[in-house]
């Protein structure tokens, strides 16, 4: 996993509430058995005027000129500004994969859906929840200033604006540690292998019906 420390990037808007994972990456693209390559189909239904198909080359498709991510001024954006309850709906990790593949490293919104929020960290992307008013202020500033960029400093838990303001944000210590250092969760958990085995032995005593019923092939 790519470590996330201090990231500066152009900000782009996704200015609507309750953006669901179907909107982030429509289901026809879930049929891929790979983890990468979802970027061209991020927000597919909004970005293009036709219905996208998996495996299709998107470069020749009719583009929706009214969708902000297609505006030249937001090309190369890596910080997404969004509204409340971003990432609601299904648990598909294809949603963060698509955002990441497109080039986003950080998403700022007043609130996120739980599973999506969690999935972002697993992919080295940083979701930041801020007060709705602060997010609104960032929207205004971004709209007013072409080329509006933010510096996101995870170790210090600060967002620095071009106006010279610093906005503090919360992040849970474990996730911060993993994200800053690019650590693999599984490796960390396996350090507790003995504790897991110990727990399992107790469980076998207490609830033997949970074991060996389904078996293996």
């Amino acid at each position, binding site marked *: 996993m790519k470590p996330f420390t201090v990231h500066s990037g152009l900000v782009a808007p996704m200015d*609507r*509430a*309750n953006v*669901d994972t*179907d*909107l982030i990456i*429509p*289901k026809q693209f*879930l*049929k*891929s*058995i*790979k*983890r990468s390559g979802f970027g061209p189909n991020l927000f597919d*239904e909004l970005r293009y005027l036709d219905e996208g198909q*998996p*495996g299709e080359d998107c470069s020749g498709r009719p583009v929706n000129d009214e969708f902000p991510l297609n505006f030249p001024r937001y090309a190369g954006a890596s910080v997404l500004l969004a*509204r*409340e*309850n971003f990432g*609601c*709906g*299904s*648990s*598909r*990790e294809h949603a*963060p994969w698509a955002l990441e593949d497109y080039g986003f490293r950080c998403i700022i919104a007043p*609130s996120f*859906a*739980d*599973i999506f929020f*969690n999935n972002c960290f*697993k992919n080295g992307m940083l979701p930041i929840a801020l007060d709705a008013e602060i997010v609104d202020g960032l929207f205004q500033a971004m709209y007013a200033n072409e080329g509006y960029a933010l510096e996101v400093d995870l170790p210090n838990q600060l967002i620095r604006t071009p106006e010279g303001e610093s906005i503090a944000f919360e992040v*849970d*210590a*474990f996730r911060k*540690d993993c994200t800053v250092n690019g650590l693999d*969760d*599984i490796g*960390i*958990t*396996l350090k*507790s*292998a003995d*504790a*897991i085995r110990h*727990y*399992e032995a107790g*469980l076998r005593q*207490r*609830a*033997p*019906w*949970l*074991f060996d*019923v*389904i*078996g*293996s*092939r």
Partner: protein
Amino acid sequence: MAGKTLYDKLWQLHLVEQRDDGTALIYIDRHLIHEVTSPQAFEGLRLAGREPWRRDANLAVPDHNVPTEKAERAGGVAAIADPVSRLQVQTLDENCDAFDIVEIPINDRRQGIVHVVGPEQGATLPGMTVVCGDSHTSTHGALGALAHGIGTSEVEHVLATQCLIQKKMKNLLIRVDGQVQPGVTAKDIALAIIGEIGTAGGTGFAIEFGGEAVRALSMEGRMTLCNMSIEAGARMGMIAVDDVTLDYVKGRPYAPSGEQWTAAEAAWRDLHSDDDAEFDRVVVLEGAAIKPQVTWGTSPEMVLPIDALVPGPQDFEDPVKRSACERALEYMGLEAGQAISEIRPDRVFIGSCTNSRIEDLREAANVVRGRSKAASVKQVLIVPGSGEVKAQAEAEGLDKVFMDAGMEWREPGCSMCLAMNADKLGAGEHCASTSNRNFEGRQGFGGRTHLVSPAMAAAAAVAGHFVDVRELIEGAA
């Protein structure tokens, strides 16, 4: 000290390690696997040279991509017409082979939607932690289990370690007091709750559903209710264990029997919140006030009783909600002030992990019996949740009831719930659907979904427009 909630107890029972930073290692008893969210997880295991921690804790079943037409289905995996769908199902078969994981394959009689199959086979039991790479894993909470959806990285994590790194949620009690009227179902209760608290209302909480109206639900109804916890923003919803739970579980293929049953029953009897348990939030609904519900917009919270009028932007004070309403009306092709009962579905879908169990099909059949599909409705799909449900329905003659009415009786799978296979809506078409999500494009590009109960879907199918099902069934007001 205050007593414990059901969630507190389940959490405590599965705690492997509490860490100083507030996270905990939680043991997972059952991991359910389907073809969409697992390939990248198996790939991850392979790349890291890891093996599954405990094979017998896993059970796999393909559901999202399987065709539901008899002819296409008959040829098994190799006959799946869409090559991309076929590859996904094949990849599941291969991964289960390679990693020694038990799979219920496509044409096995037990195959079906993972959230129907788990409880039906006794693979999910009271007191378990149950996870699956699918957000509707909350369904299994109906058995008094701690069940929630996970992403693919976590699928890999569970495969490799049998644990998840979790933070404890807050406790939310949703109590539905009194009794619901005849014709009002678990689906209507679920939609009414979401209408009340919103799609983010449960974010950060574990929901427990309680109250007389919930206690009165069958297991099927309880699963419908817990299924939609995620639409209320909560990863998990659960219901205390009682006789209804135990009667349902007893005798299931993977459920304990004999002495083990006795021990299990004793342990499971404690799976309820203590009388003095404290919840962080309590929401109370009056069962008697809940009417059959229909969603009019593009989020499950955009829901109203059948006798209501479609709202307009001016009905919302919050500017974000106002613009959401405007956009939803445009997408749905509806006018503010129009009666919900005037909306005419082009297609009807009865199925999905929310409403494809035997009781759902019985409720729909009760409405359809002796009537036929309205001419204006192009297609009515009835998709049982599993092969077992299908067999049971056929034994009761329900398939005939539907087919005699001009409806299609299909093979089990997710089908038009998310339109990953050939079953989907055309652009601009309205659908009365018993599924759980009415997001833009969910049931097909440009498709317009209205979420309803099976009885309400059946009523719309025969009437040609939404109608209060209580007018069509005996014994209802």
